[in-house]
């Protein structure tokens, strides 16, 4: 299951759907808004996506994860719009009969999402400035460590 949402991510609901009789392991990863990036302080993040394509890319990731590992449930949810401090911008939930597959799939899914999904974050700093994060481009290199 993949989803983009402008609302807070319903984590308990995702966990409940992953916790099935066929599964012996349920793994949750949340990416959350961090206050400090190096010495700069964040007030919030704002996310934008090329939504039709992002959904397709996330669906491809789910399909590939299910091909590589034996998964019972696989859910990838990304929040868009403003995400406050400590809020979850992304949730990956996988369940599998045994834990090795859940850990491996969860790690691969979040790493791959960050490489391929057409989704962008904008830092809102406490000094009032805003900055799109585009890793590898000169004017945004300060925020590369996401």
């Amino acid at each position, binding site marked *: 299951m993949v989803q983009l949402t402008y609302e807070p991510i319903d984590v308990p609901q995702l966990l409940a759907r992953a916790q099935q009789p066929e599964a012996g392991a349920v793994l949750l990863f949340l990416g959350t808004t961090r206050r400090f990036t190096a010495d700069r302080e964040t007030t919030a993040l704002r996310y934008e996506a*090329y939504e*039709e394509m992002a959904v*397709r890319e996330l669906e491809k990731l789910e399909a590939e994860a299910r091909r590589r590992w034996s998964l019972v449930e696989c859910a990838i949810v990304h929040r868009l719009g403003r995400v406050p401090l400590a809020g979850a911008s992304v949730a990956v939930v996988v369940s599998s009969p045994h834990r090795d597959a859940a850990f491996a799939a969860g790690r691969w899914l979040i790493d791959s999402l*960050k490489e391929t*999904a057409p989704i*962008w974050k904008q830092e809102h700093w406490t000094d009032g400035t805003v900055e799109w994060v585009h890793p590898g481009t000169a*004017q945004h290199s300060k925020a590369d460590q996401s």
Partner: protein
Amino acid sequence: MKVAVKLFAAARELAGETELAVELPDGADVAQLRASLAAKSPQLKPIADRSLIAVNSEYADQATVIRAGDEIALIPPVSGG
């Protein structure tokens, strides 16, 4: 043919538009699209040089041929998660 290129994030803000119309010869590929985009909107260069092009919601390579009616997007380096 005229194609519309969707812009996102810093590229959208640099251009001041959510889409740019670009005129291309029939049978043009992504490399030609990039050249036309650079000529039309030089302020996009710092981002465009590091961006990928998507055609119909799939990442394309330089040789991908563009057809009238294709949905085209400039994909700056992504930072989701």
